[in-house]
């Protein structure tokens, strides 16, 4: 293989790629033309997703380095209550003398944690149920799992969440994560079921059977890797939903009241009639940062969607 002219540099091309300008004698060449773009390239190719990734990165940094960034301890109630913005309290203080800016900064931790874990758990549930159900399509097992999925899908989630949270003895972040997870998986499970139904009759699945693979291995090692983009999209979607749900629950007064989150900030500020007292920032800033985070994550999902749906590419 002679390579006498410099190949056009291509991102992601490895040294083995034989796309030399003179393709002579490359009788058995292995080309990279058919290789799909790497997932990060695809996501990054969307302007929206780029914006989303950058914003999310900022939030993550703020959450990780909250102790360094936040001017105060968010639970320290030793400041003068109801103070306006100042050097010590950038956004003023709450009625119980806590620093609003610090609460806002620390609040990102709860939102991101809930998003991460509730998104993960919900995605795992959805994936396992969706994959098994779809792979077993037409059997009793599928009927059963589809039934459970459909029931979970039609039951109005919010009343269910409210009842579940009201039932629980202790309200902590893990409860919220758990409740959100178990009420939010059904839609994704259904999508995955549909997807695996379209994949399970592919020849490579039959081929795997002929390789002597067991069912679990076929489902999770052979088929699932072909659904990564769908799984990723459903994870990002679930995480976004979970962040919103956590805020919603907390704002209803059903959150973990011992931790600082944007939802609890909203709840506290409203319960204290913050607007009536002129504490604008206390009410509107948490809602705004929340919406920005969720928008950013939705933007990222625009990018992820491109993976599973090449038709959507070439935009942004």
């Amino acid at each position, binding site marked *: 293989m002679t390579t006498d002219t410099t*190949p056009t540099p291509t991102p992601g091309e490895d040294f083995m790629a034989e796309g030399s*300008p*003179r*393709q002579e004698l490359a009788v058995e060449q*292995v080309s*990279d033309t058919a290789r799909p773009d790497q997932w990060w390239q695809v996501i990054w190719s969307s302007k929206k997703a780029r914006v989303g990734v950058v914003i999310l990165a900022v939030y993550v940094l703020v959450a990780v380095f909250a102790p360094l960034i936040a001017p105060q301890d968010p639970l320290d109630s030793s400041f003068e209550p109801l103070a306006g913005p100042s050097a010590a309290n950038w956004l003023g203080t709450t009625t119980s003398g806590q620093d609003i800016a610090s609460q806002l900064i620390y609040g990102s931790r709860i939102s991101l944690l809930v998003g991460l874990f509730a998104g993960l758990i919900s995605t795992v549930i959805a994936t396992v149920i969706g994959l098994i159900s779809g792979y077993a399509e037409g059997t009793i097992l599928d009927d059963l799992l589809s039934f459970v999925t459909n029931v979970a899908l039609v039951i109005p989630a919010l009343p269910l969440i409210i009842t579940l949270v009201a039932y629980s003895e202790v309200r902590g972040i893990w409860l919220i994560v758990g409740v959100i997870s178990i009420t939010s998986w059904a839609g994704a499970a259904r999508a995955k079921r549909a997807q695996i139904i379209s994949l399970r009759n592919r020849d490579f699945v039959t*081929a795997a059977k*002929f390789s*002597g693979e067991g069912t679990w291995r076929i489902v999770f090692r052979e088929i699932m890797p072909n659904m990564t983009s769908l799984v990723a999209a459903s994870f990002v979607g679930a995480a976004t939903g979970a962040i919103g749900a956590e805020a919603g629950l907390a704002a209803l007064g059903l959150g973990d009241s011992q931790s600082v989150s944007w939802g609890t900030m909203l709840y506290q500020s409203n319960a204290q009639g913050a607007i009536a007292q002129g504490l604008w920032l206390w009410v509107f800033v948490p809602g705004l940062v929340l919406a920005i985070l969720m928008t950013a994550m939705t933007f990222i999902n625009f990018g992820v969607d491109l993976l599973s749906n090449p038709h959507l590419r070439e935009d942004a």
Partner: protein
Amino acid sequence: MTLLDVRDLSVRYEPKASRPLDAVQEVSFGIGPGEFVGLIGESGSGKTTLGTALLRLLQRPGRISGGSITFDGTDITDLPEDDLRALRWRDISTVFQSSMNSLNPVVRVEGQFRDAIEQHSSLRGEAVTRRIRELFEMVIIDPKFMTAFPHELSGGMRQRVNLALALALEPKFILLDEPTTGLDVVVQHSILENVRRLQAEQGFAVLFISHDIGTVLDLSDRILVMYAGRIVEDQSAGALLREPLHPYTKGLLGSYGDPRQETVKITYVPGRPPDLSLPMVGCSFAARCPERIDLCLEQDPPLVPLQGGRAACHVAVLQREEGGAGPHGEPKRGFEGPQFVKTADESRSALTNDVVLSVEGVGKVFERRRGFTVTRTEAVSDVSFDLRRGEVTALVGQSGSGKSTLARMITGVESPTSGRIVFHGPDGDQQVSGFRGRALRDYRSDVQMVFQDPYSSINPAKRLGYVLSRPLANYQGLKGAALRERVMELLERVALTPADRFVNRYGYELSGGQRQRVIIAKALAVEPRIIVADEPISSLDVSIRAEVLELLNDLVKENDVGILYITHDLLSARMLSDEVIVLNNGRVVEQGPTLDVIRAPKDDYTRTLLDAIPNPF
């Protein structure tokens, strides 16, 4: 005067995330009124892109990057969409490749005629209906199907409807883009007959795009051969058959042979077409060309007039200039590349080895329960044959003939409803019927499968090494270095060498032929006694089919494995098999040693299948 005049047309795809690609490069040709022109090329050659460009239907990121298209005196290259609209369908219409998708699934067929007719003519109401009825009759479809939805029509009917739709406004030019691909040979034939008849009657011009030179040859007045985005040869059909100029054309022609002959040779073009997104020096076919000379590597041959046609080949030009006596020798008619030869003697030595699996009077009835009615479909009835060690049995028939059902029963996926299948394995005879779990898995260490579509039968998310290692790990318990060594061996065995270049590749990085080799290697991994090969070549480009056949042939000889070769194509059956079983509607209509069946077919159906083999000679 030409109806359609294409000059230096180039089409460029510019995806944001990857390299731009010139799918069509400076193509020039013309089509006269009423002329029937074939456009041949393998997948990826740019023929469909060219067709789409002619229709001005290119979508981003593709665009016409140069040249011009003149239709009936009007330059339509940059004609505004509004002006173009007047021309569309009234003058230029089309039939697309995928008959499944080119009709709007939610609108009745009649409506899809009506909107086009009303858009471009003054016909309204009942007159339109009459016209549609007329069109239906023209393509020999009962007009009662006018009110059907597309999904209610069979594939063949749908394509006839598409044809009728294309003719609705009596256009001057119709682009047929692989209109019969995916249809049964018999149906294919009747549709093409139809096209030819209508063209003769109505005198429209046709550009017929196909990957299969056989289908186009007898229809076309003139043939364009396309390779890597360029036209490499342009000759009248007769001249092309008589004296193909470009080696690639020779390769295409060489893919066919007459199965009745004593010795059948079919050639194949090794390798794969170049990556059009990379710059190219020299002739784009040079890498695969057996007649290549040094000049081919340095200079891109222009498409020049030659022998009344045109060709883009240095060698052909030099040979003609030299009159056949020069350093480049005589022009050769055949393709000088690798070939797969089967003699009659080889075929005659068949049917002597041990039987490894016998199918005894097998029938299969499917029952579908819908409400209170039960529909019984007899997919297979009373089929008997043997599979022998080191021999190939071909199961020939169209889709729906029951071949796949038989394959499923033989691989243990389904049970016969009557008769029995006996596997004469190392542990004694074993009746094959609806194995489950462990038993099925064990049985599959003896029976393996090669699939029709090499594109979907390799897991796109896994490296080849992994794909090949799984059966070894599962059935032979190999691990670590031993496993890896065996994987390499397998790759070498199917000539994917050097193996270490392939072992970490993904399936989609390979060409179709290479992929099919991987599948074969995988089937070989467990050293099975039987391989069921379900149409292993039908989705491959014509030019490389023989390559896979040859490999299978070698395997039979060397590994002493019995192959059940399922196909609709008697030529490949002749090349590969020792015994042929012709299935029609689930019944065996003819069965016997391959040569006997092909040379002296007793059944009409067998004859129809034989006729369907394109015979350019």
